[in-house]
């Protein structure tokens, strides 16, 4: 991992990311409601 880690970023979580996750979550539920499955 070290030879590719010059771009090292750490995981972040804040209210903006939570709101964005919530929006993506609604999109995911809608796709699931239409029959899309993330499983192969």
């Amino acid at each position, binding site marked *: 991992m070290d030879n590719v880690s010059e771009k090292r*970023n*750490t995981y972040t979580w804040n209210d903006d990311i939570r709101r964005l996750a919530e929006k993506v979550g609604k999109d995911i539920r809608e796709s699931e409601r239409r029959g899309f499955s993330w499983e192969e």
Partner: protein
Amino acid sequence: MKLKIPERGFVLLDTNVLIDTSKYPDNFLVLHNELKRLHISSVVESTIRFEFLRGLRNVSDGEKLLTGLCGENHLVLNPDKDTFDRALKISQIYVRNDNKQVKIADVIIAAQIAKYAKGAGNANELLLATQNHKDFPPVLFERVDEMLITIPDGTIKIIGFYRFKSDRFNELQVI
């Protein structure tokens, strides 16, 4: 719940963790706060990125979420010939050990984890965080820790943190 994974290490979040983070952000907050507390470095893998984005109507929001979680200019691992060569060896080991149902995407992810495993010339190894436990079988993966998250309907989600067993891989691939 405090995770016992190496501080300042690298963790790759599997597609199922990204999906459930999006569906249950208030419940998965505990996971992301732990990753933040431990200063865990973010990694995106192209197969996982594809799996996560392919079902979204608004791909741009999914991209923004990955960037938000993982940071601007985050590290992206792209599969190459070496990845597929390693994936083939891993598949052969799985077949010999009665793990014949593992999905292609998960073997590619396994090959990426293998490339950046401890003992493969890396001081800092890459761990995988996944809820898909059966596709990262004990023949080649060791569960380092797990986190239990209860979602609103009472279902308990188990996120395992997996390490690739390089030594075992080296033994088994020559058989």
